[in-house]
């Protein structure tokens, strides 16, 4: 496995109107690996994720302190355009939300058009849809509306949309939690395949899922990073007692 660090988070704290919701988080995300983020509801997983592509600061009254380095450069540094950053750090949300009035094809192409990326649009769209394991299901109705797709297909469409701009890091916030077990398993398989080319940070409430898809796992509790270890280690031999309580379900 590649040991280079893709994103380095250094002393990150995040605030909502002055209230800290993340406290002094420090961790590394290795290149071409999957980092799972787990923890009880409200512990700051989504906030952490949204700091990584500067989506957090879009909320009114939100702010951050600390450093996040992408390939060694601070993403909050002067001259870093958040719009350009978000092209490099893509994001998939809990609920599938394709652009309603665009066709399936246009949805996947949307990011390319936004970023005025040159190249063969058809080829890029096909590649993204294949990468999202959706191509075979939609190749005959690319001009159709995404509304006609199932929830799981829509979610994979959103993954394809995020992949089309070739991000370096893909953030996924509970991407499978709105899906049925079969669709969820497909997304899981997909995460596995994505690891070969992308760095993935995935938030999940599903412990088995975290164990299956990730290389390392970070456990958050009350806005603090309690433990970040290789996944096998964190689940079988956690260093912290609170981690053990959480992963074994003895959490109180």
């Amino acid at each position, binding site marked *: 496995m590649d040991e280079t660090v893709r994103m380095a988070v250094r002393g990150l704290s995040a605030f909502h109107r002055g209230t800290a919701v993340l406290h002094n988080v420090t961790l590394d995300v290795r290149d071409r690996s999957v980092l799972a983020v787990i923890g009880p509801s409200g512990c700051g997983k989504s906030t952490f994720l949204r700091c990584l592509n500067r989506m957090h600061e879009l909320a009114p009254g939100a702010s951050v302190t600390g450093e996040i380095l992408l390939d060694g450069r601070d993403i909050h540094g002067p001259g870093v355009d958040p*719009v350009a950053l*978000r092209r490099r750090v893509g994001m998939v949300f809990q*609920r599938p939300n394709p652009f309603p009035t*665009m066709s399936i094809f246009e949805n996947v192409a949307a990011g390319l058009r936004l970023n005025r990326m040159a190249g063969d649009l058809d080829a890029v769209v096909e590649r993204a849809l294949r990468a999202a394991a959706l191509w075979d299901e939609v190749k005959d109705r690319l001009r159709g509306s995404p509304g006609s797709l199932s929830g799981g297909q829509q979610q994979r469409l959103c993954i394809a949309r995020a992949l089309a*701009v070739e991000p370096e890091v893909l953030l996924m916030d509970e991407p499978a939690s709105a899906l049925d077990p079969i669709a969820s398993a497909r997304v899981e398989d997909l995460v596995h395949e994505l690891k070969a080319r992308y760095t993935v940070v995935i938030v999940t409430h599903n412990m088995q899922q975290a164990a299956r898809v990730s290389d390392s796992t970070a456990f958050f509790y009350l806005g603090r990073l309690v433990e970040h270890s290789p996944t096998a280690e964190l689940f079988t031999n956690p260093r912290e007692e609170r981690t053990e309580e959480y992963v074994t379900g003895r959490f109180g």
Partner: protein
Amino acid sequence: MSMAHTAPLAMSGAPPRRAGSVRTGDRLWRLFLLAAGCGVFLLTALILIVLARLALPVLHQPGTWAFLTSSDWDPVAESFGALPFVWGTLVTSAVAVVLAFPVGLGVALFITEVAPTWLRRPVTFAIELLSAVPSVVYGLWGLFIVVPWLRETVEPALGAALGFLPLFSGPPLGLGYLAAGLVLAVMVLPTLASVSIEVMRTVPAGLRESAYALGATQWEVVRLAVLPHSRSGLVGALVLGTGRALGETMAVAMLIGNAPSVGTSLFAPGYSLASVIANEFAEAGSDAHVGALAALGLVLFLVTIAFNAAARLLIGRRQP
């Protein structure tokens, strides 16, 4: 239906006397609600019937079509044509919405997408204040400010630049379609803006965010997520605003020039359905005159109802 509902209740062992009294109260309550609900329909129907009965002679004598397409209005000679009024109402409303829609849309986008949170309330409040200004005050403002401005500045300039178009030809009179339409635009702006704001508030946060997450700028988020999702609701706002403009009486009566003619230039004076009824009803001498005015009222009523119904349909159809 109601039998199926009450049957399990009766079997659940409630004391029968009590159940009976509840049911009587319930029945009375329902009756009252039914009456209230039907009352609204009845009222609407009544208005329609009264108007139609008054209008019947006119709709018979020259015939509905002839009445609607004739542009001759001469109460003394008992010759009645609705075209100048229908035309005036449509033109002023069209001018109003064409001018107000972009502004309303801009205000709504500003409030929902751009403005810092602390600024949203004051701006919304200012917009709502506009709708509290009485119609006659708008009329006065139009007479003393807008009309001179149009006559001395805007209309000569428009005429010089675009005078080759029939729309902007003719002498700059001030009073006319443009003056009425411009003031109407300010009057329908609150409707357009507040409905647009409501519509845009229903854009799912996830949709907006996924546009941002793709590397969209603020404007691109609007284009990609906000506008497409709000499309039918915005058309609804447009139609609702038109509905408001169609029925506006006082301000238009003060500004349109009150000339029963069909002008092709926006600078020309005209007349509108609502304002001719307001101006002439009190002194209408003959039954035929009253009937003709009632027929105009009927036309206005049907058109406004159609617009409002269409707007409700468009605004209500959006998914939550």
